[in-house]
Structures are given as structure tokens and as C-alpha cells.
């Protein structure tokens, strides 16, 4: 119990450092040009999850939103740019 609390506090402070106090939960709410650390990929779709993994998009890795175009987000993962849609951005918990 105590350990869960600690970890929550820790991630809380981590977010604080990253996003400047915003309570950003997933990538769809993320600010442009701020580096976030992925906490979880929230989806029932295991295939999608493992696909994202092979791109280097998984827990612990960093991701940056480069721009928001209409309903798509341009993100930078590892050294590549990807365009993802809003649903997918929502599934990436940071």
C-alpha cells in the first residue's frame, strides 16, 4: 500500500517537472514541444500495443508532440516523426 502511494507521488512530481504543473493525462492533451515520458499504452488491442513497442513507443520512453494538425498529432518518438490520430493520442498515457 505504502509503495503504491510512493510511486504515485513520484510520478506526480515527475509530471510536474515535465509539463509545468498541468495535469496532462494523455498525449491528446499534451503541450507542443514538451518532452513527456510515456507511462502506459492504454488499449485492449495487444497488436497495436506491440506495434507501438517496435516503434519505440512504450512505457519509459520519451515522446514529444511536434504539432497538432486538424485531428492528427505529429509526434517525435526515437528519431522519427509519426502522424497519429486523436484516438491513438488518447491511448498514450503520459
Amino acid at each position, binding site marked *: 500500500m505504502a509503495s503504491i502511494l510512493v510511486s504515485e507521488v513520484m510520478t506526480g512530481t515527475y509530471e510536474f517537472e515535465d509539463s509545468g504543473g498541468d495535469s496532462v493525462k494523455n498525449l491528446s492533451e499534451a503541450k507542443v*514541444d514538451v*518532452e513527456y515520458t510515456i507511462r502506459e499504452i492504454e488499449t485492449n*488491442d*495487444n*497488436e*497495436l500495443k*506491440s*506495434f*507501438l*513497442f*517496435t*516503434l*519505440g513507443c*512504450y512505457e*519509459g*520512453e*520519451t515522446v*514529444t508532440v*511536434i*504539432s497538432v*494538425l*486538424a*485531428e*492528427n498529432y*505529429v509526434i*517525435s518518438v*526515437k*528519431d*522519427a*516523426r*509519426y*502522424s*497519429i*490520430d486523436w*484516438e*491513438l493520442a488518447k*491511448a498514450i498515457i503520459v
Partner: protein
Amino acid sequence: MKIALTGNPNSGKTTMFNAITGKIEHVGNWAGVTIEKKEGDIKKNLNKTGIEITAVDLPGAYSMSPFTSEESITRDFVKNENPDVIINIVDATNLSRSLFFTTQLMELGIPVVVALNKSDLNEKKKTAINVKALSKALGCPVIKTISTKVSDNGLEALISKAVEVKGKSQTAPYDSKRIDFANAKAVEASDKKRYEFVNSIVSNVEDRKVSSNHQTKQDAADRILAHKWFGIPIFAAVMWAVFSISQTHLGPLLADTFAGWIDGLYAWTEGMLGEGVSPILSSLLLDGIIGGVGAVVGFLPLIMVLFFLLALLEDCGYMARVAVVMDRFFKRVGLSGKSIIPMVIGTGCAIPGIMATRTIKNERQRRTTAMLTPFMPCGAKLPVIALFAGTFFDDAAWVGTTMYFMGIAIIILGALIVVRITGEKNARSFFIMELPEYRFPSIKRATISMLSRGKAFIIKAGTIILLCNAAVQVMQTFNWQFQVVAEGAESTSILASIASPFAILLIPLGFGVWQLAAAAITGFIAKENVVGTLAVVYSITNFIDTEELALVSGGADVASVMGLTSVAALAYLMFNLFTPPCFAAIGAMNAEMEDRKWLWGGISFQFGMGYVVAFLTYQIGTLITTGSLGTGFITGFIAVAVMVGYVVHLVIKGNNKAQQKLKMSA
């Protein structure tokens, strides 16, 4: 000896394959161009050993675990066919992702040579990679390559290295052999460790001056080109420019010269034949073969200019942005963002486009995409567009541009209808697409692509088109008693009697004459046949006037021969573009859909769509231009109403199905 080319999507495998084998396979600056493996022998000047080496180009993969079927092609090939050496093409600008796959490849026990491709891009970004250290860390040779360059590209070194390592053993730097693959958790944990290992290598060998997650000029360009509101107008402007250059300006200029040669050939043959030759034979040779094929080939310069421009677009990386722009609309109608790739490929030829639907996992989306891809105007439809734009609309670039956007609009409408009929509108899909870096398009690559397509066009004209034209000529010369049709009694010919029943159906569309019906029918064999058949049945030798240095400046003549109003001509053009594609494309649809019901549903849908679009264009256009409705309005209206009614019925049925599904799950 067999070498497999593997690597991440868009790392340049096919470009390298073309460079080392001298083949001309389709390349584009976006992920997922290659969908099937391709084989070729390595060029002699790169291969000094004298042993025959076969290179196999495989579709891109991010890892050994298959997510899409083209990724599993790669995995199956590497695992089952035991290539002697694997060349792993690594995108030097994205080491940390690419090496994940490299470490997996190295576990297979087949010698691996890493080709550090796109190293020129790294120099521009001031990123340095220590090749020696990388080679040591991986335990396999690493060669810097720039496969887009002609010389000094590292390819010779790469091939000789590949020959050298054949049969030698390498130790995988990261080994996961002891892991139980049935246990998903363990695999995940192992893969995470693999990534950690890769990251540690990268941090050691890569010296990156500019971090990749900072805004660049490219990102600024993305924000404009893929903008919410500007994206589509920019795409429209780009397409308009492409058509304007190919169809209104540069194309006709070249076409005139070219048509002059064809005319010369015609006149020369006519002179050679002289007077004594039987009119049947001379008209078969002159009007059927030379005239018909010449009419199609006359458009070759226009098409080559167009292909050249499209190749430039594909090469610079813009197409991936178009996919992003379109995703928004496609998602609304239940297609995935991936559906765009087949459609972009479909602008060249519908068949590879339909085959590219394989990358779509969702069965309904895959079948819907396969059914709708042929609505994109393919290369074979361009002569038809060019003919009508030239004859009736004074070479206007808007005709071609409109046809492209009509195609897109029909695809969106079609997808909307299909998703309602299947009752799966609640299905969700995710869209993720790699955005390749923009680059200055290569004139050389575009030229090669243009020449290879031009060659294919000529081959087609010399085979299928030629045979069809000869057949059409024979069929219109004779009647069913095999007697020569008398002048003035053309409607008794075999061709006329076959085509006439169809022509009746086309009266409400404004072009109910047997000649046009016959051309539309031969169009199902190959769309260029529409042009060829029209030339044969109206004995027009040339649609391009050489005298006045303008494409079809005698357009008024051609138009009067055909007896069509501009509106009816536009309706006829649309009918030909938006009915089912050629038989070869239908065969491809059959292969990818794997379902009779879907195939026949798709074909009927395409027929219905062509009919309705042509009907509306003709009737509304006639109403606007003349103030009264066109001929056969009532009958046509009933036919269209029945078709629309049936679709509505199916949609309602589909809705009920969807509601039942909801109830079931609730």
C-alpha cells in the same frame, strides 16, 4: 547465393535493390511501398566474384513479430527460405529504432551485414556515427551506403562484404533464445531489455548535435501542407499544376511532334499500299492497327510528363502528408488512414493499389478499400481524360483535376454507404503513419520511373490495344453473314449489333449510340481502348492535330463527328472513369476480397455509381445549359431511383443489424 534485403519501412530497401540489380521497381518516399518480395540478380559490375547472386527485396518490417501481412512475408522468408546472407538496411537517421530489428535478425544464425543507409542525410544534420564502434558492438560488419547516389555509394563494398561473410558465424549481441515465447510477459520484458541494449549502443556510437525532437523547417512545412483547412486546397492546387503542365502546356507541345511521326507513318504506309490493295485489308492495317494504336500512343508524351510529375511528388515525401490530410475524412466514413496508400498507388495502376490493401488488417476496411481504389483515375484512364479534355474542353487542366477529386469524393461516399450496409459503423481504428523527411526530388529517379512507365504503356498499346482495335475493325467491317457492310449501313455490322442493346441503356446518359457503347465495352479490357475504339469506329486517325500545333485543335471536328454536346461528353468521360475498372483489376479485387458476395457487390456498386454519376451530370448539365432536361429523363430517373432505393434498403437493413449488435453487447 541468395541475399535478403531487410529493414524498417522507408529505409530505402527498394532503392538499394534497384541500384544493385538494375531493376526498376516502384519506389516512393513513404513507408509501405513494397508489399511483395521481389527478386533480381546483382549487376556484374558490383559483383566481382563471378558467382551468381540473387537479391531479394522484402517489404519493410519494424520487428520480427508480424503485425501486418507484409511484415510476415519478411519474417516467413527469412525464417523459411534460409538466405545465405541478410543485408539489414538501417536508416542512419534513426539508429535507435532500426537496431532493434537488427538485433533480432542476428539471432537467426544467418550472417548479417548492416548497410548504414541515408548516411548523407546524417552529414547534413551533423550527426556522426562511429561505424567501427557500431560494428564491434553488433558483432557484424557495418558499411556506410548512399543508395541514391550513382557512384561512391558504398554498394560495391557492401556486396563484397556480403560475399565474404557467407557461411561464417556471428554471435548475436543480444540473445533471447532462452525465453519462453509463449509467455507474453516474458517476451515483453525481454524486448524491453533489447531496447535498453540498443539504446546503450546508440549512446556510444552516435554523436548527435541536433536533438531530433526539436522543431525544424520540415515541421513548419508540415503544419502548412497538412493544415486543417489549407491541406485540401493545397493538394488541389498541386494536382491542378500537375495537370496544367502535362495537359495544357508542356504535354501538348511534345504530343504534337510525336503525333506528326505517327501521321507520317500512316501516310507512308498508305503510299506503300497504293491503289491495288483490297480496301478491307488496307483499312484493317491503316484504320484498325495504325490508326487505333496511334490514337492511343499519341497520348504517350502527355502521360509521360504526368508520370514524371507524379514521380517527383512521390519522391519528395508529400504523399505521406496527403494521407494525413485525408485521414480525417476517411475515418468519418469508416475507412482507416491506411486506405489512402492503396489509393495513391492506384493513381499509377489500380492493380498494385488493390494489392496494397493487404496492409489493412480489418477485413471490412480491406475489402471496402479494394472495392473503392479503382475509382482513382489510373494511368490507363489518362488518355481518355486527355482526349475528352482536349476535344471538348480546350485542354483545360480543370478536367483532370476534377476527375481526381471526383474520384476521391466518390470513394468517400462509397465508403460511407458500405459502412452503413455492413452495419459496422461503430468499429474503431487507429491511424499511425511515419512521416518521412522531405527531400529534394531526384530528377533521375523520376526520369527512370517515367521511362519505365512509358515503356509499359507502349507494350500495352502494341499488344492488348492493338489486338482489340484489330478485332473492332473486323467486327465493324463485316455483318453476321460475313459480308462486307455496305456504306451507309454501318448499323448492321457485328460490332453495331452487339453494342446497340447496350446503347439503349445509355440513352438517358446522353450517349446512346452504338459507337460509344462499343468503346465503353472495350474499355473493360483496358481503359485505353476507349480512345482506340473511338478512333477506329469514327475512323479518326489522329486526335492530335499537327497542323496547328495545338492538341486536338480540330476538336470541333472530332466533337461534331461524335455528335456529342460538351455535357454529354463529360457524362461519357465520367461513365468510363467511374464504372468497374478493367478485367485485370477486377481479378485483383477478387484476389484481395476473397469473397464472392463482396466482389459482385463491388462490381454492381461500381456500375451503379458510373451510371448515376453520368446520369446526373448529363441531365443536370443539360438543364443548366439548355433549360430543358435531356433525352430519356423519365426512364433514366426510374432506373436511378431503383438503384438508390435498393442501396437505401440495404443501408436500413445494415442499421438494424448495427442496432442489434449494440443490444447484444449491452
